[in-house]
């Protein structure tokens, strides 16, 4: 394992944190505006969060290998 691997994993975590934070924040805003659309917003939020997380996990796996 490269000594800089964990550092790269940390940077990937920063990116994913920003991304998922944005998604969650906007989703909560959207739910506050339109409480009746909660189930649709939640589904899309989880899909988007999963996609962002997938990229971050790619980075983590590559960094730790």
């Amino acid at each position, binding site marked *: 394992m490269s000594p800089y691997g964990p550092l790269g994993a940390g940077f990937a975590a920063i990116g994913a944190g920003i991304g998922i934070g944005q998604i969650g924040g906007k989703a909560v805003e959207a739910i506050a505006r339109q409480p009746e659309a909660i189930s649709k917003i939640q*589904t899309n939020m*989880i*899909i988007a969060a*999963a996609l962002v997380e997938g990229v971050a996990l790619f980075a983590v796996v590559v960094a730790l290998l």
Partner: protein
Amino acid sequence: MNNSGILKSKIFNKLLICAFFLALAAFPVFGFSQEKAPGAKEEKFDAGKTAMEHITDKHEWRLFGEQVVVPLPVILYTDKGFEIFLSSKLKPAGTVYKGKYYNYKLINDKIKVVDQAGAVSETGNVWDFSITQNIAGMWLSGLILIFLFLSASSAYKKRAGKGPKGLQSFLEPVILFIRDDVARPNIGLKYERFMPLLLTVFFFILINNLFGMIPFFPGGYNLTGNIAVTFTLAFVMFLVVNLNGNKYYWKHIFSPNPWWLFPIMIPVEIVGIFSKPIALMIRLFANMLAGHIVIVSLISLIFIFNTLWMSPVSVAFAVFIDVIEVLVVFLQAYVFTILSALFIGMAVEEHHHEVI
């Protein structure tokens, strides 16, 4: 007046808990001091090694800790034929088992061909088809799933027209959730064909994730945190998506709209075919693996600091992460299913929607 009694008992309970931890702290390194043999060199605790040992597959089923184990059959395919024996022959650690064709030894939970003295030799090429802890656990969870669903479906036959009861009322909302919130919105009209697949994948991932969270008997294995298992699941999804892809799906890949985009878009779309299932594979694998490693690391803090004062902190954090992991267990099963449904939906979509 009763209230004061309850209050007193609450305070008393708190004091009791504090006193318990204080009493524990009076015996620093209690566990270690017993194990240490006189004159033996103290072995340094390696958290990374402990974590890796917890997440890797084993040739024996550890029911409770490392003492109560069930040996599982080892099946090796060598260039001279099959070799079958029980994994207890390889215990205790470092034992060289003399088989029919070669000598075997367990090195880092992997079976290696060794010579008489126990040094790894390169002569024999063995393929390990053993029934490991993961496989035994997968069979157990499969049996449980079969039992659950057969009893629920027979209840539907017997109680036709009546309200659900017992197991039925536990499973029906989940199945309806998969149908109404996962399959139908994402796949569209043809959703019924894919329901058995989506339900199987969802419940298989869910039950194995949940068993992975239990540290002792029914669980104790880490199936969904094994990349071979998630690879197989993702490969099934890859086949389903691409074998069901209609002409719109393939047209989308092989003929992008302006013709001069061909050289850029076709490689990108072909990479996209493979990157979707690979993302499914890595996501489930990394999530479950990371959860296990975090919990083991938090427990390891006690041994890293080598004091029992650390244990309340470490146990509190471990319980906190454990609760989050229970959420992640459901979320990952859901995410795998919904993304599979989404990819299937992209492949079987009838009308090609133009993006404006």
